[in-house]
């Protein structure tokens, strides 16, 4: 079920004993690295990936500014043109400009990724907090439920969901969100459990702080850091999975200027007109790599400090 693999210290592995304690991380020498700052200076990776994402966001919000043309304008006389100065990314079977369509496709594609991640992380937050903070029986029940959901690995749950509710842009977005939720939920649960047993929460209890204060002022801010990394990493993954569904004809349908749908439309022409599939796919890769790099660099920084 996890689309993100259980990598590194964020995750509890399938084994119960492996919950990482902060002491085992970092290793020697990390404590000496620099003093703490309130706003840490961004690394090169962080700045570069954030810039790429900002450009993509501008294209998504104001596509007309970046590419003034109409993404749906048909010009049969100019169909299947190879990349040139007039059409840097070439044209498709109806003579539509691929560059314009790629720019206008940024909005829907990123929106799908963001919505799917919001659904997945939102559900996961509910489950993770219920399991991590609730009574023992609730933790037991939630953990069993997650185990069942994990037995629909990868895209399987999404495919089952699409069988029931039919293909389309909305169902595929929800399907990707639901498929990713159990993986996030397990990470959030383990983070909540780590935070619950932490010395700072013990200190707050000793100081006589109430339960609500401890949860809102101490526990949630600590889980939020993990959440931020999860969301950043998740958006890239969601875009990839949602576009895979579109490519398979189960997500956004071809006339729409969405990257996955454009790929799906170009599928029949792969060997003759490569630019129809190459460029939309390139932008999926760029956005996925940029979000992953950003997420990883934030994660590396938070672990170091």
């Amino acid at each position: 079920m996890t689309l993100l693999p259980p990598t590194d210290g964020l995750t509890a592995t399938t084994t119960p004993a492996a919950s990482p304690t902060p002491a085992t991380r970092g290793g020697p020498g990390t404590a000496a690295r620099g003093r703490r700052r309130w706003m840490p200076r961004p690394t090169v990776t962080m700045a570069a990936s954030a810039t790429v994402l900002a450009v993509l966001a501008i294209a998504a919000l104001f596509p007309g500014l970046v590419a003034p043309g109409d993404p749906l304008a048909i010009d049969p006389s100019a169909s299947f043109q190879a990349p040139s100065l007039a059409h840097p990314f070439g044209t498709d079977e109806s003579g539509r400009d691929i560059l314009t369509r790629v720019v206008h496709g940024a909005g829907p594609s990123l929106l799908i990724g963001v919505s799917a991640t919001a659904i997945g992380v939102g559900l996961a937050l509910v489950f993770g907090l219920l399991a991590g903070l609730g009574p023992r029986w609730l933790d037991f029940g939630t953990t069993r439920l997650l185990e069942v959901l994990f037995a629909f690995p990868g895209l399987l749950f999404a495919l089952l969901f699409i069988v029931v509710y039919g293909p389309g842009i909305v169902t595929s977005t929800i399907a990707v969100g639901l498929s990713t939720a159990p993986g996030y939920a397990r990470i959030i649960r383990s983070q909540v459990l780590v935070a619950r047993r932490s010395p700072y929460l013990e200190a707050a209890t000793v100081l006589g702080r109430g339960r609500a204060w401890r949860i809102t002022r101490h526990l949630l801010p600590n889980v939020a850091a993990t959440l931020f990394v999860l969301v950043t990493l998740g958006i890239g993954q969601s875009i990839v999975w949602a576009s895979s569904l579109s490519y398979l004809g189960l997500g956004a349908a071809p006339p729409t200027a969405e990257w996955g749908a454009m790929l799906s439309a170009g599928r029949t022409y792969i060997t003759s007109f490569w630019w129809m599939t190459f460029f939309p796919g390139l932008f999926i890769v760029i956005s996925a790599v940029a979000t992953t790099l950003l997420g990883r660099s934030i994660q590396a920084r938070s672990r170091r400090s």
Partner: protein
Amino acid sequence: MAGSLTPTAHPTARPGGAGRPRTRLPALRWLLLRLGGAVFVVWAVATVTFFAIRLIPGDPAEAIVGGPGSQASDEALAEARADYGLDQPLPVQYLQYLGRLLRGDLGRSYALRDDVTTVIGENVGGTLTLAVASLALASVIALALAVWSARGGRAAGAVTSLLEIVAAAVPHFWLAISLILLFSSTLGWLPPVSVPGPLGLVLPVVTLALPLSGFLGQVMRESLLTALSSPFVLAARARGEGDSGVFWRHALRHAAIPAIGLAGWAFGALISGAVVVETIFARPGIGRSLLSAVQGRDVPLVTGIVISVAIVYMIVTTLTDLADRLVDPRLREEAR
């Protein structure tokens, strides 16, 4: 590689087992609990699937006789209903369904008019070949990246890290298209669709293996670096072990443990990837059958494949947990 791990290579292995802290869960009880849990999950998956497909709008009998637009006669519909047991009350249908599952009967495909088990049996070989070859290739690439990044200094670390992230982020379908463009259309070295024989296997395997190697590489590199900075490596050095001895005999073995734990996840990733890869390369297999079943709303075939995948997933995760316990003595001391 897991079986060869000796406890002495382990940081927490205590000589003679002296001073064991917590109560020790007997291995047999652990195994029974684990198996019981696995059976529960398979039952739950079957139940969820059974009731989920009842949410599909429309009459399943119409899907059997050929979709909503088929204008089948009432007799044909009634016959189809009786044929597939759809005229029974829901609880009876559910119990019959569970009974058939226990006998290993997954029902009959609507579209192919064939037993689901037969369809799976015909297709499982292709997917298995693809998955095993991809997993092997991905492990080799991941291991090479991890070793290179650990031994090659800072620059190598940064390069491999970037390579792994890019590999993990590339969607299968785009990778497949790019590989077809390069090796089939431009160079003409390899066939663009999967033909029988080893040559037709190259592009599908590479497509499936590269993203997987990115994920595996990240995990292996991380655990390798943790292992290299842990006390048992220092202890090995203190005993006079050389650089390569420390690396190959101690750190690398230790780094394999988290990779074993990823087996369940890797299985899911391979199945999902197979859906895309088998479709693009027109290769017969479970993934392609699943996709055409989803597109045609062939409910028995979809549920049959989903349940089979869940069963195999549970077998894989149970075995990896077992392997983890055999390899890692710390886990045997965990009591809940």
